[in-house]
């Protein structure tokens, strides 16, 4: 099954490159940290208000992290004509999409795993019972951001105004992910019973499924000759 092997090779290559240069992950991490800092300083709030704003701040931080990381995901392919090499490989282009997607998804998860505990510490959150649920929400939300972001990144990487165009294209399109993730996180942090916020998880799951399929199919047209 050369298809899955190719995905594995692409993830291997991206992980290895990132391990050596550490340039993307460090900028993603520090960006998230800065956002949390700025928000907690500029929004002076009492305990009650803080609880309500936290899911929003968290997912704003994650989204902007995604903008940095996802936006650069195809940058390495623009050097040395590597994109052409991917075009000429005897594989369906969707394998390239999935390989890049998996790499991006893993990078974002790594940053989130580091950032979230810091969040808990800075904002004094009590989350012990909710860790599996929080993990599920992060998984679904990050998958949505990555699915959309990987496709858009391939499109914008060659444009001069990439750093402006990528977030301009990504953010309106992922509004459902933001809404779903924030509401679900709020529900989980509140300790609400699952029934109250499960619709948001369903929303995230539907978004992920739809856009994985649509992006997979559309990616074919990006690397065309």
């Amino acid at each position, binding site marked *: 099954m050369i298809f899955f092997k190719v995905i594995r090779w692409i993830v291997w290559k991206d992980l290895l490159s990132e391990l050596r240069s550490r340039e993307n992950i460090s900028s993603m991490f520090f960006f998230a940290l800065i956002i949390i800092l700025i928000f907690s300083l500029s929004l002076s709030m009492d305990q009650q208000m803080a609880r309500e704003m936290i899911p929003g701040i968290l997912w704003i931080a994650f989204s902007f992290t995604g903008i940095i990381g996802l936006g650069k995901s195809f940058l390495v392919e623009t050097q040395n004509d590597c994109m052409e090499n991917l075009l000429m490989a005897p594989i369906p282009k969707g394998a390239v999409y999935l390989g890049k997607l998996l790499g991006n998804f893993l990078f974002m998860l790594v940053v989130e795993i580091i950032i979230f505990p810091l969040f808990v510490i800075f904002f004094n959150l009590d989350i012990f019972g909710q860790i599996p649920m929080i993990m599920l929400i992060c998984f679904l939300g990050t998958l949505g951001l990555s699915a*959309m972001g990987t*496709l*858009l990144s391939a*499109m*914008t990487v060659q*444009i*001069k*105004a990439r750093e402006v*165009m990528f977030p*301009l*294209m990504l*953010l*309106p*399109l992922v*509004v*459902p992910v933001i*809404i*779903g993730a924030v*509401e679900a996180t709020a529900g989980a942090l509140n300790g609400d019973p699952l029934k109250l916020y499960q*619709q948001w998880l369903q*929303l995230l799951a*539907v*978004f992920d499924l*739809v*856009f994985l399929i*649509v*992006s997979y199919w*559309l990616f074919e*047209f*990006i690397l*065309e000759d």
Partner: protein
Amino acid sequence: MRRLEGWFGLAAAIFLVVGLYMALVSSPPDYYQGETVRIMYIHVPFAQTSLLAYLVLFLGSLWYLWKKDPVVDNLSHAAAGVGVFFTVGELLTGSIWGKPAWNTWWTWDARLTSAFVLLLILVAYLMLRMFMDDQEKEARYAAILAIIGFVDLPIVYFSVEWWRTLHQPLSVSQRGLAISQELLIPLIIMSVGFYLLFTYMIMIRTRMLYLEHLLEAKKGRLLSQAHL
């Protein structure tokens, strides 16, 4: 082709004039909203036409990815530009309607928010096309963005609707307006007028884009001849 354009323009003008007369003068004011309900006669057609533009953009983009026809690409490009006009119109009239009716310039209801997201997608589409140099790639990538956006918009709409019912249950939905027979006829006339206006504008804009491309090609030919 230009003559056909003219007929559409004329037909649009007729419908709009008649419709506006009925909307502003002869139809009765609403029981609850009074005279301000008259904005509905422009707001609803704006909304419908903006979605029509988006539909044309979507279908054109699918067709282009399948057949690679540059004429269809021009049509899609035109639809996006015209779509911006009608979406901005929808947002402005929506806001103006909101102020006297609910004492607020903006409400994050599903309709307006989706319209705002649609506007952002259309602007992103136009900017993408502006920033790309390679004509063939530009058409392909723009088509991809349009398709993704079109699939996304219903999801955006529903997610905002759910969110709204959770956080703002007391707002009155604009769709809750009971449309009686008397209000329906001027609304239909205005809608038809808007559709005709849309067709007229798209035809002009498509022709403009075609001429722009022709000019670019001629310039390129002259330059390359000067080279050799």
